[in-house]
């Protein structure tokens, strides 16, 4: 019984839940090119406000910062924390690739072997994939990040056209 729970609530998840990384809102959505999104899980009410700041250097668009304010369960909070660790500092293209790998893991119903090289602490969520009701929790922050990043890229591209 406890083993089933432990498969879901890995120590890594509980650690991130108690001490979330990169939490708090940074940047200024109205001024410095930071994009802010607000995502909710309508079935349970979990919410995240998330900001993404992209920065281009040497022709590579990078995830400069991801900051957030969120309310929700341990899975959604920990997953968002792990996500920020994984994407901050990475080129956007590579970060999107990590997002894809995490999404595949979550949608695999427990059949996908997680790749620690790519997902690092994110492998702790492999057990979540066996709990269909919780997959949405684990994806809340990731989906918000993808949305904000896509919006930011669109804005950047439009900004480029104006120059």
């Amino acid at each position, binding site marked *: 019984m406890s083993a089933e729970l432990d498969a879901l609530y890995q120590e890594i998840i509980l650690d991130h839940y108690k001490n979330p990384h990169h939490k708090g809102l940074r940047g200024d959505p109205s001024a410095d090119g930071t994009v802010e999104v607000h995502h909710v899980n309508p079935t349970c*009410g979990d919410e995240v406000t998330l900001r993404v700041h992209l920065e281009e250097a040497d022709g590579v668009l990078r995830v400069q910062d991801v900051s957030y304010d969120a309310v*929700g369960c*341990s899975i*959604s909070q920990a997953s968002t924390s792990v996500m920020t660790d994984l994407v901050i500092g990475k080129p956007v293209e590579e970060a999107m690739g990590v997002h894809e790998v995490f999404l595949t893991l979550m949608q695999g119903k427990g059949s996908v072997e997680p790749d620690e090289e790519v997902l690092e602490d994110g492998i702790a969520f492999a057990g979540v994939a066996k709990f269909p009701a919780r997959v949405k929790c684990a994806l809340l922050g990731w989906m918000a990040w993808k949305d904000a990043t896509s919006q930011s890229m669109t804005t950047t591209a439009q900004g480029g056209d104006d120059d």
Partner: protein
Amino acid sequence: MDGLLPDLDVVRKDFPILGRTTVDGLPLVYLDSANTSQKPQVVIDAMVDHLERHNANVARAMHLLGAEATEAFEGGRDKVAAFIGAPERDEVIFTKNASEALNLVAQTLGLEGPHRVGPGDVVVTTEMEHHSNIVPWQMLTQRTGAELRWFTFDEAGQLDLSQVDELITERTKVVTFTWVSNMLGTVNPVAELTRRAHEVGAIVVVDASQAAPQLPIDLAAMPVEERPDVVVFTGHKVVGPTGIGVLWGRRSLLEELPPFLGGGEMIETVTMERSTYAGLPHKFEAGTPPIVEAVGLGAAVDYLAGLGMDAVHAHEQAITAYALEGLGTVPGLRVLGPLDATQRGGAISFELAGVHPHDVAQVLDVRGIAVRAGHHCARPAHAKFGVQSSTRMSSYVYTTPGEIDALVEALHYTRDYFKVG
């Protein structure tokens, strides 16, 4: 324990699902009855028998099965009418669910007719409603230019009735509220609010989705000035099937409201230019109705009537009092709603400091205990308590004190598991 149903063991045997176990072989502790109730064998059998032996469309099939199906369907209406003490059986309209019943009223009140809600009019609801008794009225008032106002509630989960003179005025056309709150468990003063609303000529719409399963309802016995104009509830919370809801409405009101959905069954005659409409109840039942569901619902309300709604209510109160006492032993647990079992229904929402409701529900589920976690379709009410969601246990006729013990023990375990406190 006083108040429990006398033959609780026998009652439990009526519900076959209670005999199953979890995947780990644990007994099932079902404490999510405010979400949907379990079904007794007699309801299942009534529906299977209808499908096996009497199935046909109703009111239009001129053959043996058609006559039997019509009789069974209309028999369901008679039973529901008796269950709520409807002054007339034709005032009972079958809908898809309680939400559709509320939408039927809210939508038709926006159409041409003597009760049409328009600019300057006020519709009053409350802050403790299920979303299904907020959103349809938002849609009505937004569409018509009327104003939506609402009663707030206090920390004890009681409506602030000091607002009554301010909210219920000559401008008020509709007053709608839940009889028993699905989140707080609060039992609202139906008679008092209805009387006040009627004094200004407002129509009173009561959501009885949580009341019908637990409280004896006798509409005909209510003084007419204290009797709501419309009462709605859903079949699946009164041990009946999903797919069927009930709208009871005062005949004179229903006759003055325009039809809701157009189609078969709700007409008298149809030409290509125009139609005339059927009388009650069929005027509001376009298309093939939920036939086997009505048969099941009839069996369901008969089952509850057999137990006796006074006995059902007493059982609910005994279990609720026992649960409130048990929950009180869990450190860091706060009940959202009234703490006096005699003043409330059987749904108890709570928060557990340091553990999110999702995580509470997950740990309980692993131990075979089914509760609901989330906003229970009552976000505004949660916001009032400064929380975004809660965990809710809700009992019913088959709930035992032992199951409450299991819940309380599992909540202690949950705190340990998440190393709280």
